[in-house]
């Protein structure tokens, strides 16, 4: 198994009559072909990012000329200063950061607390309440959009970040995810023991449950943060003051106004907006990728 890149099961029996050396050659050649195709896929995945970075270093005259630019230019500074003149980039980035962080903290707390109850306690109405929660998965966002907008307008939240934070502060997916995790991760004996020691419900949650479900919380936290950071449709509607928006909405405004004239600057904005998210993803990638698969095959 040291030299093979390909599962041994994939060798065809018809090839058995070839010499041994030839077969090893074939296996190795197939291994190389495999990695070449995989690398081609990686390049396709990465190329749009590369191109966006390249474009952010060129002026729009350069971008509009043929052939397309594939190497960095010298206009990054110009594009940056034009970008900061056109939109309140750091103000909107701060808004995004504020909303995403607040929502993540609230979701982690409310979802894990509710999940703890559903995973480890029984009480009247538990089955009905849980089934009700699963129903919300089926409700499409459009059905809620108009009434939400009307309710928020009545509350005076339209235009402020509150309209993004409050409805997102707890969700069915997170409760379901954490409940699955807690059912197996928290041992009943541990809870019984802590109860004998006179621990209250909140103490059990904080000192017994939370410490053992940290990996589950990490996934939920990163997932929630990225989802909030990238959220677009609802903020576009709810943030009615064009000077006080999240980053995605600001970026869309930039594209709408300058999208056909100053591509270099618009591209600079798109690239800058990706950086914080890429950092979060780089930190949590291992967890996300592993848990995503687990969630799907469960």
């Amino acid at each position, binding site marked *: 198994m040291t030299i093979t*890149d390909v*599962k041994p*099961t994939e060798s*065809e*029996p018809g090839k058995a009559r070839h010499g041994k050396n030839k077969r090893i050659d074939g296996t190795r050649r197939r291994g190389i072909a*495999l*990695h070449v*195709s*995989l690398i081609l*896929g*990686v390049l396709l995945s990465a190329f*749009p*990012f590369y*191109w*966006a970075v390249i474009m952010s270093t060129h002026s729009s005259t350069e*971008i509009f000329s*043929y*052939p*397309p630019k594939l190497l960095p230019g010298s206009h990054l500074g110009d594009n940056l200063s034009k970008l900061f003149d056109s939109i309140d980039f750091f103000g909107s980035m701060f808004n995004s950061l504020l909303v995403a962080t607040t929502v993540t903290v609230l979701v982690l707390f*409310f979802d894990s*607390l*509710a999940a703890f109850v559903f995973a480890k306690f*029984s*009480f009247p109405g*538990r089955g009905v309440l849980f089934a*009700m929660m699963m129903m919300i998965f089926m409700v499409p*966002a*459009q*059905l*809620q*959009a*108009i*009434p939400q907008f*009307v*309710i928020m307008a009545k509350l005076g939240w339209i235009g402020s970040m509150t309209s993004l934070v*409050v409805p997102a*502060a707890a969700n*069915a997916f997170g*409760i379901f995810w954490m409940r699955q995790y807690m059912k197996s991760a928290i041992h009943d004996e541990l809870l019984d023991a802590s109860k004998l020691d006179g621990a209250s419900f*909140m103490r059990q949650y904080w000192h017994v449950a939370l410490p053992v479900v940290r990996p589950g919380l990490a996934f939920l936290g990163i997932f929630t943060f990225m989802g909030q950071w*990238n959220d*677009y*449709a609802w903020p576009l509607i709810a943030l009615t003051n064009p000077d006080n928006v999240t980053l*995605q909405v600001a*970026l*869309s405004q930039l*594209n*709408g106004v300058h*999208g056909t004239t100053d*591509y270099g600057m618009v*591209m600079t904005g*798109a690239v800058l*907006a990706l950086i914080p*998210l*890429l950092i979060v993803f780089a930190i949590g990638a291992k967890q996300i*990728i592993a848990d*995503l*698969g687990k969630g*799907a*095959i469960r």
Partner: protein
Amino acid sequence: MATVPLVEKPPAPAVEPPPANPKKSIRSYWRLYAAISPFYLLFLAFGLIPVGFSLYLSFHRWDGLGSMEYAGLSQYKYLLSDTDFWSSIGNTIIIWALATFPMIFLAMVTAVMLNSAVRFKKIYRFAYFLPNVTSVVAVAIIFGSVFSTNFGLVNALLQAVGLDQVAWLNTPWGIKVAIATLMTWQWTGYNAIIFLAGLQTIPGELYEAARVDGAGPIQTFFRITLPMMRPVLLFVLVISTVTGLQSFSEPQVLLQTTANESTFSGGPDHAGRTMVLYFFQQTFDNNDFGYGAAVAWGIFLVVVIFSIINWRLVQRRGED
């Protein structure tokens, strides 16, 4: 028959040591109810009440400010004859199909390759997943430039090999292909990771047995891999359908610069106007909240019908 009760009587559910005691008053559970209450309060205020309200609204005419006017079934009748709505269903389904089938095929191929590659597996997975974590807005802006008529990469490639250039974002099919390409790019890696997780649960003995029986790699794939992957395939298909049929951000950002009447109009000839874009246009541009609500229920129905079709297709293939 006498044995049946014995078999059917399992011990009390092993979820929780002290089962709910009926004599205990409901009040003694107040901590538990308090702990789950935040979700249910939000669910009530921003989930359940809105859904009921949007049903009520769909039977009324309302511009969001003045007084509501009862309209009976007239808005649903209009919806059925609204050619704009039907064409938005057509656009959505075409874009969904152009994106989903290549995506599932490419994701499966990628997953099978990742499953056989021993080295660099983690790096590959990271790279393939990257497109999915980036925001649709940034990605749509980038793809707008990839498909630009004047300086886009795709047209530069076409020119380089001596083909005619295409005004991608100005022709009905070009628009749909551009949106579908964006979606395929963004979701192939994500689904490949899910398929890979599914592939890794298939026991190695099955492949061993197939090898002993003299099955080739293609036969093995269709006789073992694909049947074993059916549940995961169903999961991916259902998720892709539910999200794909509700696409909004991709066409909205991609086509907002070429839209003339509204940023929700879906580009020239409304060729990229999906169902949800049409919903936003009716509701928030035309301020027709009542009709918007009827459109939303129409979208809901289309999504439900498609989910059922998906489910039955995959189920039936399972019975063969």
